[in-house]
C-alpha cells in the first residue's frame, strides 16, 4: 500500500503524556481520545489534522507510559503511519499491535519538515519526500512482527496464526 500525506512534524522524546494527557484517560473511546491528541504541545493538531496526514517525530518517540491510548489516539486522528528517528519500545509494540505502522529511519528524519508531502510504501519501507525529493529506507520489522503488522494488529494475528498456540 502506498500512502501520501502532509507532514505533522514533532521533535525528540515525544512522550505519551503529551500524545494523550492522563486527564483524558477516563475514556478509551478512540474518537474521544483523538479529539485531545497532542493538545499539550500542539493545540492545532486535533482540529486541523486531515485523514491521511503523516506524523513524523525525532528520537525516542512515544516514551513514557504504556498507555495504548496514545497510538489509538493518533490512529483515530486519521494518521495512517508514523515515521521517526527511533521509537520507545512499548509505544512501538503497541502501535504494531493496534495496526498503526511505524517506520524507523534514524537521523535521516531530520530533513523531513512540517508541511512536506511524503509518500510511504509500507511493504517496501520506502519513503519519498515529494517536497524535497529526498528518499529514505526504513529498517524492516523483524520476523513474525512483520506478520503481526501485515495482519493489521495482534488480535487479528492471534486469531489467524499458530504462533501463540
Amino acid at each position, binding site marked *: 500500500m502506498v500512502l501520501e500525506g502532509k507532514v505533522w512534524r514533532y521533535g525528540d*522524546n515525544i*512522550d505519551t*503524556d*503529551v500524545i494523550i*494527557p*492522563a*486527564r483524558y*484517560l*477516563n*475514556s*478509551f473511546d478512540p474518537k474521544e481520545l483523538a479529539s485531545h491528541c497532542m493538545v*499539550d*504541545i500542539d493545540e492545532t493538531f486535533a482540529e486541523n489534522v486531515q485523514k491521511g496526514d503523516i506524523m513524523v517525530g525525532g*528520537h*525516542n518517540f512515544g*516514551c*513514557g*507510559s*504504556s*498507555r*495504548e*491510548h496514545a*497510538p*489509538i489516539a493518533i490512529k483515530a486522528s486519521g494518521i495512517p503511519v508514523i515515521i521517526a528517528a*527511533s521509537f*520507545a*519500545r*512499548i509505544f512501538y*509494540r*503497541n502501535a504494531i*499491535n*493496534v495496526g498503526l505502522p511505524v517506520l524507523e529511519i534514524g537521523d535521516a528524519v531530520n530533513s523531513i519538515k512540517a508541511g512536506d508531502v511524503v509518500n510511504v510504501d509500507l511493504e517496501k519501507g520506502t519513503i519519498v519526500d515529494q517536497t524535497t525529493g529526498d528518499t529514505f529506507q526504513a529498517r524492516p520489522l*523483524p*520476523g*513474525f*512482527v512483520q506478520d503481526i503488522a501485515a495482519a493489521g*494488529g*495482534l*488480535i487479528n494475528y*492471534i*486469531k489467524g496464526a499458530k*504462533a*501463540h498456540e
Partner: protein
Amino acid sequence: MGMTMTQKILAKHAGVPAVEPGDLIICNVDMVLANDITAPPAIAEFKKIGRPVFDKTKIALVPDHFTPNKDIKSAGLAKIVRDFVKEHAIVHYFEVGRVGIEHVLLPEQGIVGPGMVTIGADSHTCTYGALGGFSTGVGSTDLGVAMATGKAWFKVPDAIQVRLTGEKPEDITGKDVMLTLIGMIGVDGALYKSLEFTGPGVASLDMTDRFTIANMAIEGGAKNGIFPVDEQTMAYEKGRFPDGYEAVTADDDAHYCRTVDIDLSKLQPVVAFPHLPENTKVVGTFGDIKINQVVIGSCTNGRLEDLRIAADIFKGRSVHPDVRCIVIPGSQSVYMEAMKAGYIETFITAGCAVSTPTCGPCLGGYMGILAAGERCVSTTNRNFRGRMGHVDSEVYLAGPQVAAASAILGKIAAPKEVR
C-alpha cells in the same frame, strides 16, 4: 556465548536452552497485570479472542490510578474491571480499602518474585526486577492476548551492565542512584536493552532502593532493570514468596554492550529538572528555586522506608507556609505500619496532607494537580511537560529526603540544610 540474568530467565520461559540478543521468542508468562486505566481496553481486546482466561491465579488487576474514583467516567472504568473479576473469578484483585499502588502492592503481597516473567499494562512494571525477575511494561492489547494465552512475544534484549561499587552514604537514596544513572545515559540510553545491576555496591542498597532503581529503568528507555538475588532479597521474600525459587545469576562470560560504573560513595542528593528525567543536577549547584507543592509517594517512592526517611526530616519541623505537601503511602500495609511507627502523626503535625494509596497526582490524575506556573518537587518518576497538571507547570524529581527538606524550606533543598 554466556547469558545475562534477563536472557537466562527469558530462555527458560521460552523453553529453549539459550537465547541471543535480537532473537524473537514467545514466552510463558507467570503473572499478567493491569490497572483501572489499562485493564478496560485489555478486557475489550480479550473478548475479541473468544477464549477463557488462561489462569485465574496468574492475573492481577489493581485499580489504583483513578481510585477512589475521581469522576463518573473513571468509576465506569473501575466497574468494568470489577465485573470482569467476578465473571472470571480472578484471584488477585484489590478493592478500594485493600488496594495499593500496583508496584508497591504486588511485591509486598508475594505475588511477584525472583525468576518470574511478569508483564504489566503499566510502564513501571519493570519494578519487579528488584527481586531478580524479568518484568516489563506492555500495552493493553498484549495484556488482553496474554490473559487468553498466557504468552507474550519478546525480542531478546542486549544488556547494559551497571557496575556499582562503594557504600551508599547517609542522605543518599535509590532515587539519587537512578537519577544519576539516567543523567549519565539519557532517557533513551538503554532503549530496547536491559539494565543489569551488578557489583559489590549492590549490597549497600536496601530493597526499597532497589525497587526505586528498577522502577525507573523505563525512564532510561530500558525494557527491564534487574538485580541479582542476594541475602537481602531472600530475607525480604521469607514468608512472603514461596520457597524454592531460582536465584538466576549472569554467566561469567555474559555479553554487555556497555558497562557503566557508579561509585555509590561519591553520590550526592540530586533532582531532575523539567521536563525530562535525564536533566539531573546536584542539589546545591543551582540558585534558589521556590516551590508550591511537594508529593511524597508513588510506585517509585511510596514504601515504608521512603516514609521513614521523610518523617525523620519532618520531625519537629513544619511544612513551609507557601507549600502544600501531599504524602501518599503506597499500600494499606505501608499506611498501617507508618501509623504504628508514628510517621503519619509526624506528617500531619508538620502540616502535610496524607492520602489513601493512589497513583493520583503522579500522572496528573487528581489529588494534587498543578496550576499554570506552579512548581512541584515530587518523588514520582516523570517530569514531562504537563505530567502533573497545567502544561506550564514544572515537576522536579527527587528522593524522599530532598522532597521533605524542600517542603520545609519552600525551595529545592538538601536534608543537611534543615538539620
